[in-house]
């Protein structure tokens, strides 16, 4: 069965979605990713959706789910490279993905995760309040 690769980069997991995401694949990704977070003890998850041009309410929900699940396992989720059309669609669908951090590209997403790691180490009380 087709699967989306999950790469481990230091303390973080990197997922690059390069194909059109259908429902079954998205559900598999959700499960695989949570397993990987558990196995590797990752502190952050970075999902690159720059190649994703179409999104529906189900996909929005999956992304929200992944973020929610990772955060209770102490890993932050950053979604990077969202296309304007995708962003507008999600907003029109009423899915502002409020628990998810976002960044313009992978580079900035990594920097964001790094900076959150530093603040997390310095002061554990400044947890994610978004």
């Amino acid at each position, binding site marked *: 069965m087709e699967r989306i690769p999950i790469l481990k980069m230091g303390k973080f997991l990197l997922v690059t979605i390069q194909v059109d995401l259908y429902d079954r694949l998205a559900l598999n990704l959700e499960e695989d990713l949570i397993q990987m977070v558990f196995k590797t003890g990752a502190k952050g998850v970075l999902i690159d959706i720059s190649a994703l041009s179409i999104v529906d309410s189900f996909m929005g929900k999956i992304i929200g789910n992944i973020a929610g699940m990772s955060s209770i396992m102490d890993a932050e989720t950053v979604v990077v490279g*969202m296309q304007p059309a995708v962003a507008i669609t999600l907003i029109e669908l009423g899915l502002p993905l409020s628990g998810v951090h976002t960044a313009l590209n992978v580079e*900035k997403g990594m920097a964001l995760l790094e900076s959150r790691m530093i603040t997390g180490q310095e002061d554990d009380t400044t947890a994610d309040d978004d």
Partner: protein
Amino acid sequence: MERDIIDLLRSKKDQVLTLWLQAQDSDTEASSNFNTHDELQAQSSEFVDLLFGSITEHNIQDFTSWELEALTDYVSSLTISRARQGFSPRETATYIFTLKDALLKVLSEQIESDPVKLYHASIQISKFIDNIGILSFETFITGREDIISQQSDEMAELSTPVIRVWNGILAMPIIGTLDSARTQVVMENLLQGIVDTGSSIAILDISGVPAVDSLVAQHLIKTVNATRLMGAECIISGIRPEIAQTVVHLGIDLSQMITKATLESALKYAFNTLQLEVRRVQKEKVNG
């Protein structure tokens, strides 16, 4: 209508034209026109020629007939040119309807003896000229609507520029009311601007928005959320005192958004976020 009546009118073409021109001269409204008398005469003469050239006993009943295309085209172009010259639609309509008076007058002179025939012929001529009048009005309104839609397109284009204020900072001043259609344009332009320039901060300046109601606020919140999904931060600036008052009175919650009173303070905030600093440089250092 019987053929002989049309032939009869056709033979009296010159008389119709003369009567028509006389009526126009006596008409106080039309006499304030911008045409010279010769121009008006040429125009009217062409009109009458076309009318008698295309009208038959069949198509007088059927205004959509293709045989009348030349006449309808002429009426449309006449209306447009008169509208450009500054004639009101009433003046153009009066111009067309005085032709009816002329036609009916000639007709009544010619077939005085047969009232029934005169009655039927008058009704048909009236209907025909009324149709020309309606066509003229339609042309006028269509022309106007074209101009309106063209202008609103231009306005939408003009009022949503994306300005790159600094490396990584975009600004978008919004002028005019934000409705759903404009919000869509604003959002698309802003998000595309963010992708194109790789900016991480967008400033939405609403000092040009006359009023903020719950709908406009909802549109603003949508735009801010969409920007956040893209991975950039959106600052709303240019909140005037009246806007702050209405927003609070309406009970709209803007607390999740970063709002600043002026573009200046928004820019300061943006510099701060990007860890930039604006300093006054000592003059000696510049010269040296």
